[in-house]
């Protein structure tokens, strides 16, 4: 009893000393920069791999199917619907168990069929990432490999017709690899620690690497989380050094840490989805870079208490559509009116919706999953209702990964 009465002051003193010492260490290793505050923890939002991306020839979607609560019986599917088709086609690359997840990067065609580079996330005993490249919209696939595991983010791969491919991997605390031709040969471009140690990195307070994009005429750009309030973590390489190339937020959002959730080159428009916020709430901001290099951005879309993004989609012009689950498991869809445009709430999708896609004609599809059954719901914008336009039974190989 005597010990417990005397302990708090002693403990408080020790704690105060520790805090003071920690502050001193922090000051010595990371001197404060103008306009940057490194005392806020960076965001660490885990964005699901459920994603859609529209190109000029159609929409590609990554959707989990099977028993979604059981990782070994959840099989990720790659689906494609060409622009004028009404039905989705199953184009999942074969030969690898994809329980860990799939990511895909389309390479828009110039008049012909799109190419896609798909990557398998590690799972169970597999700790590297097999790849699959298709130049005929999934009719056939060629294998490749990244000998590190791809980062579990939708934009872990990015490709371009001319500049090769980049991959964001989870090893060494996060690193970006580059391949100039053979998708089984990769070399390291940069690591998270290398970016964090640059002047730009210090001013950002780099958290996780969260996206990578190969932007024509600009090269590789890397999305990160930033603990510094208002700093948007998009890094590009210029004159031999990694620099911040994203905008700076101001106003209320300028006082909060950020995390790039998506970063894509959408038909020539660099488009990003940014999360800003703290423990009390998170908002989403759509961003798009104009040809002149300036960034425009949408107004913040608050996710609400307990809200979380369960799927993201990129429209053909670079605007985003998001599927959000509320604290009471209710589903909501918000879409931008064009790149970095205002957010517009759509009617709540049917239960079981796992992904949402906006086609090249502006049509909105909600993809519902019930075990092996995929249901395509189409929004009737005028009536504000969802209509079932098709179903597909996928031969889920239950038990094959157990």
């Amino acid at each position, binding site marked *: 009893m005597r010990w417990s009465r005397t302990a708090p002051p002693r403990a408080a003193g020790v704690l105060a000393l520790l805090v003071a010492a920690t502050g001193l260490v922090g000051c010595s290793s990371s001197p404060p920069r103008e306009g940057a505050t490194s005392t806020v923890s960076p965001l660490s939002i885990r964005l699901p791999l459920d994603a859609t991306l529209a190109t000029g020839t159609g929409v590609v979607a990554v959707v989990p199917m099977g028993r979604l609560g059981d990782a070994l019986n959840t099989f990720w599917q790659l689906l494609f619907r060409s622009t004028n088709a009404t039905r989705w086609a199953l184009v999942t690359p074969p030969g690898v168990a994809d329980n860990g997840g799939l990511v895909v990067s389309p390479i828009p065609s110039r008049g012909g069929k799109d190419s896609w580079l798909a990557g398998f996330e590690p799972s169970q005993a597999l700790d590297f990432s097999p790849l699959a490249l298709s130049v005929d919209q999934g009719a056939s696939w060629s294998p490749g490999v990244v000998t590190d595991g791809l980062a579990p983010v939708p934009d872990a791969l990015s490709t371009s017709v001319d500049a090769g491919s980049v991959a964001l991997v989870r090893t060494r605390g996060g690193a970006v690899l580059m391949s100039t031709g053979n998708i089984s040969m990769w070399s390291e471009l940069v690591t998270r620690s290398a970016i964090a140690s640059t002047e730009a990195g210090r001013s950002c307070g780099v958290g996780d690497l969260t996206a990578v994009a190969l932007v024509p005429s600009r090269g590789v750009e890397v999305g990160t989380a930033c603990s510094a309030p208002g700093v948007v973590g998009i890094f590009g390489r210029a004159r031999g050094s990694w620099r911040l190339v994203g905008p700076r937020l101001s106003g209320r959002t300028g006082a909060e840490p950020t995390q790039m959730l998506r970063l894509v080159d959408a038909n020539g428009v660099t488009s990003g989805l940014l999360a800003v916020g703290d423990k009390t709430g998170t908002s989403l901001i759509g961003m798009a870079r104009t040809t002149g290099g300036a960034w425009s951005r949408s107004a913040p879309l608050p996710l609400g208490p307990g809200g979380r993004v369960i799927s993201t989609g990129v429209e053909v012009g670079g605007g985003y559509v998001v599927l959000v689950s509320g604290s009471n498991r209710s589903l909501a869809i918000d879409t931008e009116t064009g790149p970095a445009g205002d957010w517009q709430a759509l009617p709540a999708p049917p239960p079981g919706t796992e992904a949402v896609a906006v086609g090249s004609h502006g049509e909105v599809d909600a993809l519902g999953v019930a075990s092996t059954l995929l249901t395509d719901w189409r929004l009737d914008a005028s009536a504000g209702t969802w209509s079932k336009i098709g179903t597909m039974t996928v031969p889920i190989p239950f038990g094959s990964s*157990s």
Partner: protein
Amino acid sequence: MPGMGTYLQTKNPVIVSAFHGALFHQLLLVGLVLVALSVVWNILRTTQYRRSVAAGTITGPPATVMVPAEPVARRVLRVGFGMLWILDAVLQLQAAMPLGLPSSVLQPAASSSPGWVQHVVHFGVRIWTDHPVQAAAAAVWLQLGIGALLLLAPRGRWSRLAGLASIGWGLIVWVFGEAFGGIFGSGASWLFGTPGAVLFYCLGGVLVALPERIWSSPRPGRLILRALGVFLVGMAVLQAWPGRGFWQGSVPGKSPGALTAMVRAMAQTSQPGVLASVVRAFGRFDASHGWGVNLVVVVLLAASGLAFCTATPRLVRPALYVAVVLCVADWVLVQDLGFLGGVGTDPNSMLPMALVLVSGYLAISRVPVGVPVVVAADRSVSDSDAPVVRTRPWWDRVAPSYLTRVLAAIAAIAVVLVGAIPMAAASVNPNADPILAVAVDGTPNIVDLRAPPFDLVDQAGRSVSLSDLGGKTVALTFLDPVCTSDCPLIAQEFRYANSLLGADSDKVVFAAVVANPIYRATAFTNAFDRQEGLEHMRNWLFLTGSLPALDQVWENYGVEADVVPAGAMVDHSELAYLIDARGHTREVLSTEPGNGSASSSSFSVYLANALRRVINR
């Protein structure tokens, strides 16, 4: 096929057959010991007779000494626990014991205990899981031997040794088999067996191992009763403690109380219908009168505990009746006899506890007195507690009954050793019993056929044909380099088998042929090697080639490699061919991994042994 891991059922016929085989072989060994001891007994008795006749003492009068009879309290303990150990040994004979004990008894016993207890118990689980046949058979003989020793050695150092053996094995069972009797777990209750049945076996062992002279006063009896009295009062307090779920029966819309839930669970045990209906009926009664049942238990525990604390025969006697009735009621209605269901190892805590209570009461109420015993003054009766007449030669001193009991005790110790030695060997052997691999994969096909040739490239891009490997024994398997489950396990089994081979590894090449028609380039075999740490294994080859070349090899070796849609890995056969130095296939093994590290380690041992067989042919 990958992803279709085999789970061994508790009554897997291979394991059960091996268990029975081990018991039979050990029975033969015990029989041999008994025969040898019978011969020794015969020789000694013949010598004794001849020497006595020669010395003319055959008709001499026996010496008469005054020695106390074995105290009745001690005899109750010795005989009671001897019979309990033998009953436990018989229960260990159940076919489900080798594979069922870890999952159905050891792990559940520790499930509600803190992490460090589970960690300790895991050590025992690992030994049993890795060596199920050896451990299960050893437990039979250990317990049979201890029980026999207790019954056959009523007096002297052999009897005390039996007590010590009971303590030693009892503590092992209490720690690893009962997770310290659940005393560190949540939900501990006297009704459910706290502090563990085997702790009473240990207590009985301690009392048997004590010098017999301590029983000449009522002091040990008082000590026993007071200790158990305090224990019962403590258990009454624990039982009465609010918030532990014992005061409630079953309220609609809420989870049932702790006792109701336990009784309902026990009623599900496989058992005779009559007993199940009795237990279910009590469960229903407790569900509707949970508060009253707990009140009765608390009051009876506390009252009998306080009476035992007085150690006064007048108060202890009625308390003993109450406690024994309560023990029997709990044994039947809550513990459901404890040994049913196929993996019951003992009759739980109530019988041994009642035994100790009765012994305590007898120790304070029936103090032994000396009685004249007409025998030759030998150690068969007196041992260290009685005068010994050493003036006569041994054949005149040693009574035939003493000789018989000594040899019987030696036989019982031999039985203990038949169990203890394999159990000790299992506990220090890091490699699992290869019988597990046989249980998972079946017995290998023994053949002598020329192995189909192949011409492929290794992970470095060098051309490799079967003829290039001439002079070496080849372990050839088929692996998918981007497989997520089985193939990495099989690769690790091969790698470990290589390390088990020691110097013989120079005579062996471990080779895998790619079993994926899409991901078959060396980029994938190299990534796989790096993932599995095989890149520095100098006798490891991961072979691949063009699709036609691989197709030919798969066909020649009877391997299927089918691409499955919708996100599945390639479905391929899991086989290994052991090819001798002349290029002949000698054994074909299934490489399908079982579940858990035990079966994996077991396969490595099995593979290493099989490779040695092929090398030495």
